[in-house]
């Protein structure tokens, strides 16, 4: 019997798992997919929002304001890329300038520090590549960019290091209320927990309704993005928003922590909660909208496009509360933007809620908040040489575009909550995110995965079950030449 079962290992579930690891609780983190951070967390704008735009009084406003200042120490403790680069909201006409003034007033109500209005020249001087049509901007110094899946993975790993159980590939199929709590049925297994925290993202309503009376709905709202090569990564140095509208914060242009340029998203309400396809129309809209913010979009530098689904609640706000009909079942639902920013603060709040239910939480004296992660190419030459001397696999570069070594790839497979797939490795240490998109390193990464996991290379998948890459051996009879794989 666990004290707490968290369902869903996205940014919210992982944040809560790590927060609960600070206390003497037995906690299990349950994830349906093959890896953590595999839903909305892996496909979003990767922004740490300042918090001026959430409606005053809403949970979004509250947890955004609380979450934002937590990122510096959190990302330092977990060795996660985070840059507080500041953000700009551009206004293109007088009406929009008026909106900026409203947003500035709102920033004071929401308790967001340092927000100020910039005139045309001031915008130009800090962002020379922004469109000449920008009449002014709202500057928020506390806005930033973060690696969202890096953060979620780091929190899951740190939670596991501190005693949280992580169950992957375990879709919850049913939940039964018992005398002491809940019985959770998963594909092929079952477990019991006194409390459940529902962090199931776009499926949060379905998971709640397994045990409680339906009382909220989740709408999947798709957003599509383009990623540009690092050659375009320095085009802007702040997160560049346009004036918000009823569909969200509009299309943004931002550098990413990896040094690329990201543009997006659009907003498309979806019936199908599994549809992660990008569309020509969607991407076209994104490009046209982003182009409005800039003097010119960099041409020919797109290296990737992707889509993510926002989990939007029918309350138009986060839902963070005990279920109305299932006692001990806490919903953390509708965590759309600014959910990434809010997640660490939501986690603190959920721990408090559980503390009230349980009658006080006892701190875990052994909790280690630190998790270190070596990015080889960021080291000094002497440090590199020391590491290579200790483990020569750090001297072998596998990914030529991002200069990722064999040592780093093995490390990310061997860690707690380690990578098991090509995409899992890619999200942890980035081979395949570069210019060649895995053209050169893909086969090598598969080879390393197979070797380290003790599998046959044909069993190595891109991501989910069924995403096999190789279909078998070639017809050719291979001679045993002492090299390559077994005959």
């Amino acid at each position, binding site marked *: 019997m666990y004290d707490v079962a968290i369902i869903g290992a996205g940014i919210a579930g992982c944040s809560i798992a790590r927060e609960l690891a600070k206390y003497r609780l037995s906690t299990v983190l349950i994830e349906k997919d093959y890896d953590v951070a595999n839903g909305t967390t892996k496909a979003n704008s990767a922004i740490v929002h300042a918090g001026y735009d959430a409606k005053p009084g809403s949970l979004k406003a509250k947890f955004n304001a609380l979450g934002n200042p937590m990122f510096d120490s959190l990302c330092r403790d977990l060795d996660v890329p985070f840059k507080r680069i500041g953000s700009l909201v551009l206004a293109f006409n007088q009406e929009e300038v008026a909106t900026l003034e409203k947003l500035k007033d709102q920033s004071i109500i929401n308790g967001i520090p340092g927000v100020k209005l910039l005139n045309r020249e001031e915008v130009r001087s800090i962002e020379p590549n922004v469109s000449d049509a920008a009449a002014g901007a709202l500057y928020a110094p506390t806005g930033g960019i973060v690696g969202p899946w890096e953060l979620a993975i780091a929190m899951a790993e740190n939670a596991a290091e501190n005693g949280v159980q992580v169950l992957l590939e375990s879709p919850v199929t049913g939940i039964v209320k018992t005398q002491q709590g809940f019985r959770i049925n998963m594909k092929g297994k079952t477990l019991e927990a006194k409390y459940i925290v529902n962090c199931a993202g776009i499926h949060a309503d379905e998971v709640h309704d397994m045990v409680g009376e339906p009382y909220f709905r989740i709408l999947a709202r798709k957003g599509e993005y383009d990623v540009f090569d690092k050659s375009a990564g320095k085009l802007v140095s702040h997160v560049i928003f346009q004036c918000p509208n009823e569909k969200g914060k509009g299309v943004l242009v931002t550098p990413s922590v990896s040094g690329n340029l990201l543009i997006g998203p659009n907003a498309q309400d979806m019936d199908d909660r599994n549809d992660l396809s990008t*569309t020509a129309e969607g991407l076209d809209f994104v490009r046209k909208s982003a182009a409005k913010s800039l003097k010119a979009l960099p041409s020919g530098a797109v*290296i990737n496009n992707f889509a993510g689904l926002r989990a939007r609640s029918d309350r138009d706000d986060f839902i963070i509360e005990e279920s109305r009909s299932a006692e001990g079942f806490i919903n953390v639902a509708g965590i759309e933007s600014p959910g990434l920013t809010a997640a660490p603060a939501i986690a603190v709040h959920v721990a408090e809620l559980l503390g009230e239910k349980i009658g006080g939480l006892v701190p875990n004296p052994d909790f280690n908040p630190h998790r270190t992660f070596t990015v080889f190419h960021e080291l000094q030459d002497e440090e590199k040489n020391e590491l290579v001397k200790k483990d020569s696999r750090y001297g072998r570069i596998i990914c030529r575009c991002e200069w990722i070594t064999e040592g780093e790839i093995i490390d990310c497979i061997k860690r707690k909550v380690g990578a098991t797939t090509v995409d899992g490795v890619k999200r942890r240490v980035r081979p395949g995110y570069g210019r060649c998109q895995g053209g050169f390193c893909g086969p090598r990464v598969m080879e390393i995965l197979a070797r380290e996991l003790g599998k046959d290379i044909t069993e190595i998948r891109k991501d989910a079950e069924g995403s096999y890459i190789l279909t078998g*051996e070639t017809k050719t009879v291979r001679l045993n030449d002492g090299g390559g794989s077994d005959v």
Partner: protein
Amino acid sequence: MYDFDIVVVGGGPAGLAAAIEAKNNGVDRILVIERDRELGGILQQCIHNGFGLQIFKEELTGPEYAERFILELQKKEIMYKTDTMAIHVSPDKLVTIMNAAEGISHIRAKAVILAMGCRERARGAINISGTRPAGVMTAGAAQRFVNMEGYMVGKEVVIFGSGDIGLIMARRMALEGAAVKMVVERKPYSAGLTRNIVQCLEDYDIPINYTHTIVGIKGRERLEGVVISKVDSKKRPIAGTEEFVSCDTLLLSVGLIPENELSEAAGVKLDPVTGGAVVNEAMETSVEGIFACGNVLHVHDLVDYVTLESRKAGKNAARYVKGLLEGEGTIIEIRAGSGIRYVVPHFVRLENLKDELELYMRCDDIYNDKKLIVKIDGKSVKEVYKRRLMPSEMERVKLDPKEVLRKAKGSITVEIEKEVQ
């Protein structure tokens, strides 16, 4: 810190030929840096034949062609390091390398030859919308799996783009028992060599759909199919012409990009058309003593031309090391005129012109029964009749140095003869 006369970055066909030729021209301290486990570069996975017709007057496979140079390199006792990555080249020719045995080391070179080759354009660069299933990869990555690792990448194949690697892989997959359904090409003509259209597609009854593109990718875990569409004259999809083609594999052969990240770090000026360095008659880049050759300079169709060009780079790097290359003198610009996309080299220093001047170029469209015209300072000095000119096939024109020397003052232009009105 090591000291070498010449460091060659890349041990593929370009680097090998350049290193050997530099040695032949009297330079001894040469080091070749190769990131892969063996020398030979991409030739090692090109197990089909067709290499070497120009250089050896016989048809070799890729590994056979590479082997001749590797053996020559070893016979000449030229040093090389495999499994070693060149991670930086500075403008003053300090080369930083890394490998598992030694970690990071620095090499001071008198001259550097850039021979890093090229990479394939990936899915993102052509921006096909849709899902992101397994089963979509570049033709070159598939070639590595099939030819070097011995694994098949799919059973029902569509190939997007008619670049040579794609055409070669169409045949290779068919030979391995896969159903190769079609090649989809946006242009009205092939991006690959005519001989590959005949030998890899026609001989295996694989259809090629010209003026078509792929507008959608379907399938959640593994690819289930692609949506193809006709395109108009501006290569835009024509609404209503979409057609679903089921397949579990999509191989991309949509262009090659010279790998010039090291060159840029070294301050080498690039030509936006070729994606490679701007070079002079010696294959020397805008940074003195740094040379470039092969696919890192511009994408070639035949490896034989890579060899010829790289020998020139090797020979001139040796001249440079020995102080025989003139830095000063009359500089003549070489321009791509009407119908020509680019010409390499980009300019010529007349004082260095000892051998014939070889110009490599590609045209911008298909032309039939036309003359290639070379003009010096606006006056035609050479006209070559061509039955057919295609963007996929590189053209080569040789100029007599005496003629160039005598006549040139400002510029040399290559153009395709215009329609007679």
